[in-house]
């Protein structure tokens, strides 16, 4: 049995008399210890899919989620509020895109991590030591002093490390990283991805990486699911998808990765009309 399985997930948003179907029947499964990358452009429904895993989307009637999400065989969509809160953070934790706005500006970072620890691991007596260990684990130098810093005193990369420390402090089984590097510059991106890879191997957790960047998928994810307009258009092992993409959208997306030393004058862009034509002829 997979750790997490999603079957025919459909998510639609309702506003006044308008309905937008953001996810139109997505299915995937995540085994324990594996890493799944969900790749797609803005608006493809990947972030909404990630948020729906612990029902972080707005409540009905504004938003409707159907299908099945099973975590260790339990139906997430049927959980009551209390068990849902026990699931969030403890079993499935998140790291979001923008670290500076994910941290509450009026508290020290240590206090914010401690809050999560007290909530989910009440058996831990020395919370401060646990927090410092969590910060050391994500490579923050001088953690004993840094945990009393306020978010604005840290750089973007440090803030993202804090967010990762917070997510990992309660030892979740699944880490959902929703574009964790998009707001960071390229050198820091690499550091964060390397850090996530190290933590993944040392803790044995599963990771769902949401990204629009095929560049960081290689060497990080075991499997890839490509999302386009609310559907998973192609999925499979990373190497296979990267070397032999079948779907025209995947091919176009891979062609967009800039390569050093390549003799390209212009960067490739995605021609949606061409993809639509290709899809129609296929059908």
């Amino acid at each position: 049995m997979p750790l997490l399985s999603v079957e025919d997930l459909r998510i639609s948003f309702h506003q006044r008399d308008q309905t937008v179907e953001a996810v139109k029947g997505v299915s995937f499964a995540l085994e324990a210890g594996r890493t799944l990358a969900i790749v797609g452009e803005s608006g493809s429904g990947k972030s909404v899919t990630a948020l729906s895993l612990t029902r972080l989307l707005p409540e009905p009637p504004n938003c409707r989620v159907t299908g099945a999400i099973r975590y260790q065989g339990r139906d997430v969509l049927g959980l009551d509020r209390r068990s849902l809160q026990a699931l969030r953070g403890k079993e499935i934790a998140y790291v979001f895109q923008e670290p500076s706005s994910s941290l509450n500006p009026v508290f020290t970072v240590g206090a914010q991590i401690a809050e999560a620890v007290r909530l989910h691991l009440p058996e831990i007596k020395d919370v401060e030591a646990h927090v410092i260990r969590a910060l050391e684990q994500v490579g923050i130098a001088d953690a004993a002093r840094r945990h009393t810093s306020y978010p604005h005193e840290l750089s973007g990369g440090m803030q993202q490390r804090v967010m990762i420390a917070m997510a990992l402090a309660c030892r979740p089984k699944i880490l959902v990283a929703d574009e964790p590097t998009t707001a960071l510059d390229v050198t820091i991106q690499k550091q964060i991805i390397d850090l996530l890879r190290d933590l993944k191997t040392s803790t044995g957790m599963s990771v769902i990486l949401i990204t629009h960047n095929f560049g960081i998928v290689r060497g990080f994810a075991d499997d890839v699911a490509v999302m386009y307009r609310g559907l998973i258009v192609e999925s499979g092992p990373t190497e296979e998808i990267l070397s032999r993409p079948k779907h025209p959208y995947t091919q176009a997306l891979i062609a967009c990765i800039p390569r050093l030393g390549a003799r390209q004058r212009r960067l490739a862009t995605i021609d949606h009309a061409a993809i639509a034509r290709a899809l129609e002829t296929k059908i």
Partner: protein
Amino acid sequence: MKSLLLEVYRRPLGRASLFVLIALYLGALFAGFLATQPVNSQDLAHTYHPPTPIVWHDGGLAVPDYRVVDKSGPRYERTGEYHRLRLLAPGFEYRLLGLLPLQRHLVQPVDPSAKVYLLGSDSTGRCVFSRLVYGSRVSLLIGLVGITITLFLGLLVGGLSGYFGGRIDFFAMRGVEFLMAIPSLYLLLALRSVLAPRFNSDQMFVVIVIILSLIGWAGAARVLRGMSLSLRRRQFVLAAESMGQSPLRILRLHILPNLASYLLVAATLSIPGYILGEAALSFLGLGIAEPASSWGLMLSQAQNIKIFMLNFWWLLTPGVAMFVTVIAFNLLGDVLRDIVDPRMKTQ
């Protein structure tokens, strides 16, 4: 919090208003000690007595003696005699902070029959200065109590409806709008006549606070709703939710602390509204009633045309006190706002 006070202290305006307010509140706390006469000891032989200056006479503090020259005016002139004053001398009995019975006062005449009117006397010969310090209790306390109730209600309704949104928000905000649509002075008068047909002045104080807060909370609720709505959309709230925190914990731990600076500024800036509200009610004869004392009530006595014609200016001193208090609160609020939100700084 401590650093905020320090920051206020570093600015000249902030420091000045802080000192004025501290002095006023100390005056209200130790009104009995400062007062020279009981709050309602009348003396019909000395109505409209002019203020007696404290002078240095014959090696000690003293006040000049006055006698009536024209009873209809009435007009007074100095006799050339002086009454000796003593500092920290025993006088009428009062209760310090409402508990400790004491007799010591800041200044008292050596001869108990001598008249000391530091700010003159009113139409029934009561000491205006003593009534002013006693009356400051009402005016100064009403702002603090009123704003506490107002912000509590505003935070409860506004914070919750902004956070939860949807139907709760809709109904709460329509209720607030309904309340705001009623002209507040008429609502004030209507509530006053419904709530309190005949009350003594302690009960009346409570009633006035309740009335003013019931009118004031709607505006605060709307602002706080907007703020909690925008905080709700911030990613750290989503992050807290994704950590499995309950809505009430998120409200308490993440929304409320981010509202705190606004609350502090709003509180300081709206306290004058309560002071003036009480004054307006008392001025109209609907607030604190005789023989108790409040600034608005004292001012209502000064409406008399005689006061202006015969230049009994000292009866207007409650207005001056009110002006100073209101200005001090407003300046302090401005300074606080500049510290909390430097972008709002007035050039």
